[in-house]
Structure formats: C-alpha cells, structure tokens
C-alpha cells in the first residue's frame, strides 16, 4: 500500500512488548544500541553495485545484524510462512520479520473493513483455509459450530455448494484466530518495525537487507540485516484507479465524490441516509458485491430511496466458456465463482495442471480461469432482483469515455453497445481492484534491476515451484517470494489464505532440503497440532 493505514483507527489488538532480556529479542533489538560511526546511509557505491561486500556496508557506517532467515512484508504472507517455520521447529532467534505493520492482519483488516466487510460480516474464503492453522482442522465451520453452539455451519458445509451458498467465515473469527496464533508463535519477538528499502546479493553468499527503521528508534538512518534466506511477501504495491476516475480526481481535486472502495468512504453511506442519492458502481467483483450489499442493506434498514447504477466493462449475461468442461455461471453482469479462483487451484486438478505448464501455455491457462467474478449468494440475488423489479438497481455494460461535473453531479459519458449514454450520479465508487505493476514497488523494482529477478508470463515475479525467486540465488542463500507479487507462476492461487499456506509449505520443505529446518513429517505434524489445540508454543 502506498498510503499508510489510518493511524487514527482504534487498536484492534493488544500489542505485546518483548521482554528486554528475552533471548529471542536480542538478535534483533541489538542493532540500535550498537551504532557504528559513519553516515549510516546508503552510499553511491552501494546503490550502484549488484553485489555488496561486508566492507562496503561497513564503510557506509550501516550497522549489520546477522539473522539466518528473514521475511519482508509482515502481513499474512509473512505470517503463514513464519508459522510454518515455527511449527517446523525454528526458534524465534533465527527468524526476523521486517515490516511497517504492528500485527500481521493490519492491512488485510483495514482493506476488508473499508471495502465493506467489517468483523461481523463474512469474507470470501473456504472453511478449511485457516491462516492461523496449517492443518485446516478444525475448520472454521466446525469452530463456529462449537463456539456458537449451533449445527448451522456444519449443515452448510455438508450441503454446499449445491443446496446452500459456500460457507465462509466471519472476518472477526479469522482475526481472533490470527491473534491467538500470533501470540502462540511469539510473532512480536521476531518483529522489527521499519520500511525495507532494498535487498541486494552479498558477495560470499546470502543477502543484505536494508531497513529504514522507525524515526528516532535508531542512531543511523539505515540498518542492515545479513541473511542467508530471505522471503518476500510485500503484497499489492498499491491502489490503482481507473484512468478516467484518476483524471477526474486530479483535475477537480475532488476526492470526496469519486472514491475507491479500498479507501475509507463511509461518507457515501452517511450521505445516502440523509437524502436521495444516485450511486454509480464500477466493477464486477467481490468488492462491488459488498458495496452493493451495503447500499441495499442500508436501503432496507433505513427505508432509503438510493438508486444504484452498476457499470460493467465486461457484462456477463449467462454461462460463459469455450466448452462444456470449462463453463462458468453468470447472470446480470456478474460472473459467479465461489472463491477468487476455481476451487481446484488449491490442490486439485487445476493446481496439478498449471504446475506442468510453461510460458504461453501457462498464460493461456490463467486467462481461461481469469476474469472478474463474485460469489453467488442467495441473499444478494434476492436483493438485486428486488432492485431490478422496482427500478432502483440498474446495470449497464460499457466503458466511460469522459467524466465531468455538472451542478454538483458527476456526469459519466458511457460508451455502450447502443451508443453514448450520459449517466448522472452523486457518487462514483470504483470497485475495480488493487492491480498495480510490481515495478511500482521499490524493493521489487530494485530486485528486477540488480538481483537477477525476472518476470513471469503475467508480468509478476518469476518463481520456481518451490517459490524460489528465479535468478536471484546467492551462494548457499536463496530468496523466496509468495503472495500477490508472484501471480502467474506454477501455482495459480497465490493471493489467498490457502495459497499463501501452499507457498509456505513449499518454502518450508525447500528450506528443510537445504538444512535450515526440519521437514514436518507425520509425527511432528500430529504433536504440533496437539500443541496448537492446547495453545502451547510450537
């Protein structure tokens, strides 16, 4: 994210302060106290060189801390990877998490909250995809059934998806579970707060990671970490608006009437409660569905007269696909799919298939399963039908050629199949997504330029089946990447909870092969699960 999450939001979790004499904290906290003389910032030589020597870093006066494994990002991707390693027996003094987040689900919670999935609402994720539990057992459905003393979730996972919507957990349950696991694996002991500036190969093996620590927390501007294994899970580089919306916002300096669903936009719903509004929605995915659901729910709850115009760039009116074996359902503009990807990417047919494909073939496979989609939820279907019948919910297919302001209303000139149509709205909500090029992220751009990283058929980081960053090996050291930045590789479901765990498993197994940790076998898996169940540290 290019903008920091809103610091004014209330703390959702108690922060644990690591004890000063805690062995786990020593390796990481030592640096601010052992400052070396020198400018402590990156020199020209460092910026220019593809490979750094220990002397170069010393000459720059940047203090160096040794840590065998470090992960950059500190979000869900780093969390599940570290979780795997802790369960594989790696102690906290051998792992560091470099992040600007206070807790692993901070960005995720912020984004889900503003895109209208607050804690009581359900996210779009399978019952057995538990980022706080590598086994996926007990599933969220089982845990909810036990916790709420009701059979309903169990019944739903029994009859899904034919006779009920796919069960998905409430956001609050997911975050509570992450908090428990975070404390269990002593996450805060491994956490180093700051902004990672770059990663470079080290002559002799391993990597240097440059961190800009929080202002005032260290005597030098930069800190260096020398690691044998580096893991990148930096997420989406940032928000990207549709070009015409970006133009409008910049030209009119109006950030109030044209908003992204991924930023705080509660004022739209507040305005809807005070007067008749016309809201234009752009996008056909889960976020558009959630924003629409919020508008429809408020309409029903407060007796409002909000009108919604939903513009789809690609309008899906029925089942679509090249043949009977590749047909996805759709209607009224939306393509329907239970989860972010066809389910078999998380372990079934599609995973096995894409694992064997290279280059163009892989690109084509992604294209086939691609396209914006949303889950089919019975309640939403009923609400949308009501809206269509009563006329307050209209869908359109087309693209916006230009936007202008006219007497306080935003006029969008839409190019449809039947010609140009002008649509007037009070607010425009862009629900089209977080996609941005990986080179917009400084660390990734630097890797592409200096460390041998390459792009895959979809333009993101090229990784092996083991999630090793291809081309950036350094002596016995290896760099791994997982999550959204690796979309387009041998594993299709990367930017999902379970996808991050699949990557974490591959990475942990690869690290075991390289001697960094033990391989989680059957016996270890059972004993560790029992420890998880009893909330005992790994």
């Amino acid at each position, binding site marked *: 994210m290019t903008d920091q999450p809103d610091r004014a939001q209330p703390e959702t979790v108690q922060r644990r302060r690591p004890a000063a004499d805690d062995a786990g904290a020593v390796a990481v906290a030592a640096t601010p106290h052992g400052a070396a003389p020198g400018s402590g910032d990156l020199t020209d030589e460092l910026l220019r060189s593809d490979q750094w020597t220990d002397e170069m870093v010393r000459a720059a006066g940047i203090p160096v801390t040794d840590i065998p494994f470090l992960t950059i990002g500190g979000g869900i991707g780093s969390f599940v990877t570290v979780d795997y390693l802790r369960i594989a027996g790696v102690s906290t003094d051998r792992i560091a998490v470099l992040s600007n987040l206070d807790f692993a689900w901070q960005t995720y919670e912020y984004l889900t909250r503003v895109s209208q999935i607050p804690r009581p609402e359900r996210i779009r994720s399978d019952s057995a995809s538990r980022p706080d539990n590598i*086994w996926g057992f007990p599933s969220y459905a089982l845990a909810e059934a036990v916790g709420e003393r009701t059979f309903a979730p169990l019944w739903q996972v029994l009859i899904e998806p034919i006779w009920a919507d796919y069960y998905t957990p409430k956001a609050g349950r997911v975050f509570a579970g992450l908090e428990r696991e975070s404390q269990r694996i002593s996450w805060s002991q491994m956490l180093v707060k700051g902004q990672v500036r770059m990663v470079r190969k080290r002559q002799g093996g391993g990597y240097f990671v440059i961190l800009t620590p929080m202002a005032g927390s260290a005597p030098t501007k930069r800190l260096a970490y020398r690691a044998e294994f580096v893991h990148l899970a930096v997420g989406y580089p940032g928000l990207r608006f549709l070009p015409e919306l970006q133009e409008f916002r910049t030209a009119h300096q109006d950030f109030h009437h044209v908003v992204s669903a991924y930023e705080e936009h509660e004022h739209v719903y507040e305005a809807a409660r005070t007067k008749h509004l016309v809201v234009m929605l752009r996008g056909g995915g889960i976020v558009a569905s959630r924003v629409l659901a919020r508008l429809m729910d408020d309409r029903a709850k407060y007796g409002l007269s909000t009108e919604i115009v939903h513009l789809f760039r690609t309008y899906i009116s029925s089942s679509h696909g090249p043949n009977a074996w*590749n047909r*996805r359902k759709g209607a009224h503009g939306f393509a329907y799919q*239970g989860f972010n990807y066809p*389910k078999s990417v998380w*372990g079934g047919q599609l995973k*096995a298939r894409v694992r064997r494909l290279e280059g163009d073939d892989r690109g084509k496979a992604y294209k086939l399963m691609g396209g914006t989609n949303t889950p089919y939820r019975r309640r939403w279907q009923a609400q949308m039908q009501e809206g269509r019948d009563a006329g307050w919910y209209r869908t359109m297919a087309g693209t916006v050629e230009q936007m202008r302001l006219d007497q306080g209303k935003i006029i969008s000139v839409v190019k449809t199949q039947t010609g140009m149509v002008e649509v007037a709205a009070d607010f425009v909500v862009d629900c089209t997504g977080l996609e941005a090029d990986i080179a917009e992220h400084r660390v990734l751009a630097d890797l592409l330029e200096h460390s041998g990283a390459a792009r895959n058929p979809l333009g993101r980081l090229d990784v092996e089946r083991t999630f090793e960053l291809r081309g950036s090996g350094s002596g016995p050291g290896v760099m791994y990447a997982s999550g959204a930045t690796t979309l387009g590789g041998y594993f299709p479901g990367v930017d999902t909870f379970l996808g991050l765990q699949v990557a974490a*498993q591959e990475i942990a197994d690869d690290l075991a092969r390289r001697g960094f940790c033990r391989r989680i076998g059957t016996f270890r*898996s059972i004993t560790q699960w029992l420890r998880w169940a009893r909330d005992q540290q790994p």
Partner: protein
Amino acid sequence: MLPTLGGRIQTRLILLAVVGGVVTLIIGPLLPISAPLSVVYQDTFVILAAVAVLGIGWECLYHFGMQWRWEKDWPTLFGLATAIPEGLLVWLLLKAGAIPGISGTVPAAAFVIDFALVWLAVWLVANGPMRVPFIRWRFHGGRLV
C-alpha cells in the same frame, strides 16, 4: 474435496484399508450374523476389498462427472451420497454370488450396518482429521505418495 484422479484412488484405497479395516475389526463381533467370528471377518473383509476394487471404477466415473463442474471440486455431500449406488452394487453382486471368497450368505441387516459404518468412518476421517497427520495430502489432490 479437491481430488485428482490419482489422488481419489489413493485416498480411497488407503482409507478403506486403514480406517475401514479398523472399523470392520471392531464391529465384526457386533454384527447380526449367526456365523462363527472367523466367517464374519472373512465376509466383511472380502466386502471391504470388493468396495475397494469396485471403487477404482467408481472413482473414474466420479472424476469424469466432476469435469462438468467449473470449480472441479467434489462436494462433501457427494462423498456421502455415493454410498447408496456403491452399496447397492456390492449388495447385488453379493446376492448374485459374484464376489469370490464369501462364505455362506450375508444377511441384509448385517451388510447395511457394516457398509454404512465403514463408509461413514472413512468419510468423516477424509473430511477433517486426515489433514492433521498428512499436511501435504490436500494440496496434492488426495495423493499420499
């Protein structure tokens, strides 16, 4: 379930052997069959083997049917509901005397109880606890090797 063809077959065979075997061992003495225990065990284990062997064919059929699903998943309920056609087939073959190794006749009640309990146990294990000892199983389409 997110199975591949190989995974389905492996899971079926291994679970029937281990979970099915344990359940059959336990319920043997409790089944309503008026025959010596050795005969009961002979019959029930032969039925277990029959379900396994026929099961390979059934799994191929399910895999084929699954191709019509966009998600390429095998819904949980299907794993339970397929007990009916599979059980029916084994029963018909039993009655026709087409299953080798069966001694005497197996009463309907005993068969239903035996088949249902083994099926339920296998289904329950596959849909939850299996993930605890085998962390790679569900990501490999059901393959254990």
